[in-house]
């Protein structure tokens, strides 16, 4: 009787789980099936395509690096300290995940595409509109919360007494952070960075408002679909997906092997 009930329970859960797996994988299988390996290979060797995919991977990576440097200290402060306005700050950080991406693009354009900020960026020899700086900003704006929240959860899991012990052993605060806290939170930070990077790769709405050119892969896919139809856009989409998935799975596999699957 007990076994029968267990089987019924598992059958229902497996069936429902399978539905969502099918929903998520069928479009990808159909995409690769309809495009085919030859078409994917022919497309990837086109300069416009590989330049676009490389640009997307590169700019998304720069965005991740920028948020690693600035977002990790913020994540640590949010995880370890209680201060006035903390809840508000945490809510603000989640706003980019909620807003329509085109709206985020407009907001970024208003903030950094004209006025003092534009002049400041020009002073630093950085263009914003139709430039990689603008693309990176759009990607970061919408995906940074994934890294910051991932790192915050990682820091939260680490008992503050590890830092205490490190300090009694002679480590200053910076030293304790870099020698103990950061390595212990590394797995969550890497997973958060991967989530941010993969989210940034797919960013279209905000990027297209700020920079149609140089074309990142999502814009190129849209451009080809708009001008030449499905036949010319699908291979680019398939190439982009396969490259992203390979990089994503490789980094995640290394991370899980080194720090344990969570």
């Amino acid at each position: 009787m007990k076994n029968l009930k267990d089987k019924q329970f598992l059958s229902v859960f497996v069936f429902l789980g399978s539905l969502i797996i099918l929903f998520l994988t069928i479009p990808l299988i159909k995409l690769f099936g309809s495009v085919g390996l030859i078409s994917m290979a022919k497309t990837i060797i086109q300069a416009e395509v590989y330049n676009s995919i490389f640009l997307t991977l590169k700019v998304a990576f720069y965005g991740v690096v920028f948020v690693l440097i600035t977002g990790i200290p913020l994540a640590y402060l949010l995880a370890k300290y209680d201060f006035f306005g903390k809840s508000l700050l945490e809510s603000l950080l989640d706003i980019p995940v909620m807003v329509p991406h085109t709206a985020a693009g407009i907001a970024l354009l208003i903030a950094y595409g004209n006025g003092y900020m534009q002049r400041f960026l020009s002073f630093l020899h950085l263009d914003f509109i139709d430039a990689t700086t603008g693309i990176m900003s759009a990607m970061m704006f919408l995906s940074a919360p994934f890294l910051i929240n991932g790192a915050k959860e990682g820091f939260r899991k680490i008992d503050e007494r590890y830092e205490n012990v490190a300090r009694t052993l002679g480590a200053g605060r910076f030293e304790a952070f870099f020698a103990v806290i950061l390595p212990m939170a590394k797995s969550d930070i890497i997973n958060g960075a991967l989530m941010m990077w993969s989210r940034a790769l797919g960013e279209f709405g905000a990027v297209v408002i700020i920079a149609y050119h140089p074309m990142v892969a999502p814009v190129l896919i849209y451009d080809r679909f708009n001008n030449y139809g499905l036949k010319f856009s699908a291979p680019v989409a398939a190439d982009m997906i396969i490259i992203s998935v390979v990089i994503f799975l490789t980094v995640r596999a290394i991370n899980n092997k080194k720090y344990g699957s969570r």
Partner: protein
Amino acid sequence: MLKIKNLFIKEGSFTLGELSFEVATNSYFVILGKTGSGKTMLLESIAGLKEGVRGEIYCDEKNMTNLSPEERNFGFVYQDFMLFSNMSVEKNIKFSTRFKKIEKSDELFKDLISFLHIKELLKRDVKHLSGGEKQRVAIARAIYSRPKLLLLDEPLSAVDPNLRSSIMKLLKNITKRYDTTIVHVTHNFKEASFLADNIAIMLDGKILQIGKANDVLNKPKSIDVAKFLGFKNIFKGSFFDFEDERKDSYFSVDPNRILFSYEKNDKYFCYKSKIESILDITDHYKVFAKVKKRVVFAKVPKNMFDKLELKETKECMLCIDEKDIRII
């Protein structure tokens, strides 16, 4: 010598202090108290890990009060080890060499791994060690930094009971072998009586009694300390019909030293009693008898119990030898 002067800290509704005490160099000092009495907070305050601490902390006449934890040179071992999971056992032990120069470090390392039996563990991942192994590594890591003072926070609580006595023996030898002073907090009387040169009893953020281990454990100076130490049968002198200055003092009687009989014995204080309840324990009976409207607790060996045919509601004499009445 460690000298604490008027140490005070408030966290939420809990207040610690003001506390003042001294710990002699190379001595083993145990702070004994219930869980939640502020023992860990006191250790963390001494180590400089707490914000908002008032008072003064001196070590060998040097004022440590405003120094950061890394400047104090006080080692700290927590009950759940806090080994760094991103490092091997050896790297954990040698962690302090990254930040300060350790005198005769190679010699010390060899001695530590032999003394604490951790030679076989050096290359192991700390996640795969047993509780006892983790604790030995945590102690080695703290001693390797050559601390003037070693603060141990319930170091044996998370260790398998079978291994506790072996680690206790190691701890006992640390002060002299490694020229350090230990402040150890615990709620375990056995640990305290085995390890301590001096003991402080701490309850609700206050130190109630401090002194030589034997004196504190056997001669509590207040009812609260006596109750905490497990003293039973605490009565005022008037209970024993003392008419002199002892009348208002408190006394305690060990339940093992109480005798029952059916005749009065002139050598003892004997009182009419009525047995209220009896609990059968493996090797004795717990007997609760009413004397002068107070309940007295006695532990009666089984052979004696059978011989006297004691049972509930039975009336008999409850006798106490004067030498077994301990003043509090």
